[in-house]
């Protein structure tokens, strides 16, 4: 069962990848004004997406049966589910607005998310007492669905900016747009590096001294550019760190982060070298025909649809569950606080839009920031902040 489940996920992944190319293809052709062919290409694209989605649902159900609980209980499962919801949100919006271009941007983001998810341990984990509740499923699924729909506004915002930002001269706008795209590329960089070293079974161990002055052991799965505090290599002939950090800093995470940036930078520079253009400028022809008002509205609607779902899942259901599991509905735990931050951010977004007339470009930038906040809460809070917690 577990095997079937992971195969289904794999199939879904490949199908999304193929669908992306069909959506992209439909746009290429539409430049030549062959309306019929356009619709055929995007029709194939959406059909493949739907099959991929069905396959991912299959993954979800089989894993649920195998594990005895909904697969949303660890970082791998949750992040994968978020990717699935992203595709679901795209499918819904596709049927409302019939825009293939949205697929060209959303599906790759979903692909990145799913690939990123699979970098975490993938075993089925038993549930600790606090997680043994139906509210686990209810809360996590609605929260993820809400976040995914909100994230769709990021895809729309990106499309808007790629078309809108003038690429003929460099400006603050081109800089930040490139930074955003670089973030996506660096994620890809991380996935490539992590996969390569894990295929190569890389491991090198160090003894080091933690902040309480105690001896500890660290096992790196990527060559250590950054060594832990007062490290001593245990594995013979392994790559020796270039630098050492104080005990306060988690050297292993920093090392992974630097590798990702490095890989991202190399990828990015390669792309720039080959095309001799900014990445956004390379993408610009794809969006040439798109109606800015329409993408703007898609972005806004995603926020309008996603905001209530997010509030329900990430705040209200979360509070109900917290009241049962932890005796209090709210405890200022970092994950809770970041859900509140996300909520406040999109509340500000809506007010700025409705009352201050922040449409179009401003709204698109906000959507980008919103996505950063969501991803931060989804992943970084667990890895960085909760990491501090578990350290203490």
């Amino acid at each position, binding site marked *: 069962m577990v095997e079937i489940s992971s195969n289904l996920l794999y199939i879904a992944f490949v199908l999304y990848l193929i669908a992306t190319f069909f959506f992209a293809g439909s746009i290429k052709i539409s430049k030549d004004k062959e309306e019929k062919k356009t619709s055929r290409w995007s029709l194939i694209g959406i059909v493949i997406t739907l099959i991929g989605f069905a396959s991912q649902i299959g993954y979800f159900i089989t894993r649920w049966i195998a*594990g005895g609980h909904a697969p949303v209980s660890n970082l791998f499962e949750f992040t994968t589910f978020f990717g699935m919801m992203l595709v679901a949100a795209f499918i819904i919006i596709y049927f409302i607005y019939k825009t293939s271009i949205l697929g060209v941007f959303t599906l790759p983001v979903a692909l990145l998310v799913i690939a990123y998810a699979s970098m975490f341990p993938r075993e089925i984990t038993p549930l600790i007492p606090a997680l043994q509740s139906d509210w686990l499923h209810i809360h996590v699924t609605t929260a993820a669905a809400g976040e995914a729909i909100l994230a769709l506004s990021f895809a729309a915002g990106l499309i808007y900016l790629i078309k809108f930002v003038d690429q003929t001269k460099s400006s603050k706008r081109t800089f930040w747009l490139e930074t955003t795209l670089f973030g996506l590329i660096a994620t890809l960089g991380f996935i490539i590096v992590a996969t390569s070293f894990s295929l190569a079974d890389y491991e090198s161990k160090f003894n080091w001294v933690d902040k309480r002055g105690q001896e500890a052991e660290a096992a790196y799965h990527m060559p250590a550019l950054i060594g832990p505090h007062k490290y001593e290599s245990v594995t013979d002939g392994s790559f020796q760190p270039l630098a050492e950090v104080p005990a306060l800093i988690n050297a292993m995470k920093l090392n992974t982060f630097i590798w990702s940036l490095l890989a991202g930078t190399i990828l990015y520079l390669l792309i720039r070298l080959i095309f001799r253009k900014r990445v956004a400028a390379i993408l610009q022809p794809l969006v040439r025909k798109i109606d800015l008002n329409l993408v703007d509205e898609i972005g806004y609607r995603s926020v309008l*649809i996603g905001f209530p779902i997010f509030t329900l899942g990430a705040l209200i259901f979360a509070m109900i569950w917290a009241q049962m599991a932890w005796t209090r509905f709210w405890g200022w*735990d970092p994950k809770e606080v970041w859900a509140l931050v996300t909520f406040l951010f999109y509340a500000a977004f809506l007010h700025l839009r409705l009352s201050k007339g922040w449409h179009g470009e401003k709204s698109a930038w906000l959507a980008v920031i919103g996505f950063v906040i969501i991803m931060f809460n989804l992943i970084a809070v667990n890895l960085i902040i909760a990491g501090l917690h578990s350290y203490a």
Partner: protein
Amino acid sequence: MKEVKCECGHINPVGTALCEACGRVVGEEAESSKLLDMRYEASPRRSQNYNRTSVDKIWSFFSSVKVGIWLIVLTLIASALGTIFPQEMYIPPNMPAVDYYEDEYGTLGKLYYQLGFHNLYSSWWYLLLIASIGISLVICSLDRVIPLYKALKNQRTAPREGFLKRQRLFGITETSGQIDLESIKKNLKNKRYSIKEENGSILAEKNRFSRWGPYVNHIGLIIFLFGGLLRFVPGMYVDEVVWVREEETIEVPGTSGQFYVKNEKFIRQLYDQEKDDQVYNEALKKNPAVIKNFQTDAVLYEKKGNTLPGEQPELKQVESHSIQVNKPMKYKDFAFYQTDYKLDEMHKMKFKLIDKKTEESFGKLTVDLYDPKKKYELGSGYSVELLNYFPDFEFGENSEPITKSRIPNNPAFVFNMKTPDKPKGETSFVAIQQTIEPQENNKYKLAFDGIETQNVSGLTIRKDMTLWYLAIGGTIFMIGVIQGAYWNHRRIWVQKKNGQVWIAAHTNKNWFGIKREISSILSGTTLNEPADQLDDKS
């Protein structure tokens, strides 16, 4: 600022863009602009009207959306700051916070502590921010909802030309001869528009209720925040912890002696690689100690009648429940949660009285560490007196024995052993692993003879009468957001004017949707679709 006078002679309050009497577009700003600002139906608000007294100034401050957004953004940033390092409530309790932040997080940690960010969410300025949002919500809603209500209620079925022309969606169709609006009306009705007519002018409108969405959700938020305030009202909120040993019945704190709880058994289970589902094996191999269950089999008693202090209360069983995480025991307004435990806590200590040389035993005694007796009779003239007891023993500053707490973590005793040959008795100081004899040359000794342990369960007792307000507030909030987000208020005006048909339309959001709807309403007629006047700007 001054009043706005209309051609028709009516004098309108400041901020008016449509004359209250005749509906003409008035005011320099509105007249010169291409599109009408329809946000509040172009009607004036209190915050624009007056600006004299300090009340008015505060009013217009808090009713400003700009201020509201600033408050939201500041709260957002402050909240995020509080997650950089753990809040004080999450740090280990055995160390002063001052040292903890510096030790763990270095200079930044120290700064964090000095700025008071370790208790950020209960700091006065954070609470002030939240309170300001609350005030702002009340004022901004009052400021807008009444004018909006009036404007929507009194809106004209046949607005003037200036109004129509300044709508974002607007178009004119030249017609030769008669044009029949019946089919359009039918199409509008099919799309569930309600229609008003006046001299051949049509106003079709739907989903006006969605305009109240923001106000409904703001009311929900206000109730929610109010519920949060109520926590500070005495009697609304109880948060206590009680430690109950197995077999023990104990008064429940926070209930003024009304309830007693008994711990029949405490269970802690781990996942088992053999017995539990095989799919977990891989995960359990990496991390073998995963908790499966914490459980207290508890019985709740209620006291009957009044008792004098010291009198044994008469108890009646009212509830029994296996309390697990996520499955609290509930009775009346109280809930009992499984939140903590201690396994194998020392509970009874056993000794035997022996002759140091011959090791002959003269009897045994068991000391209940929570309820030690003064004297233990061993028979045949042997007895042991307990002169002093230190449940959590350590040496004090002047190396005298003291106790750190009342929990028997490290019990120590001063015994007096009375025997037929030493009728005055010999004293002995007995602690774990050590015996100190003041006289140095005792004949008898209390030898350690075993220990009985017990599990202790930590239960949290909670009463929270504010939950109702929060639930109601939350529900109203959700209704409001959904109302405002999933429906849009749409209006379409159709007017016949000397051989022309004018069509204008307005929606509060989702223009793409209304354009598609209009196009389907007008299909099959000869009328042109109104153009988006925002489009030809760009």
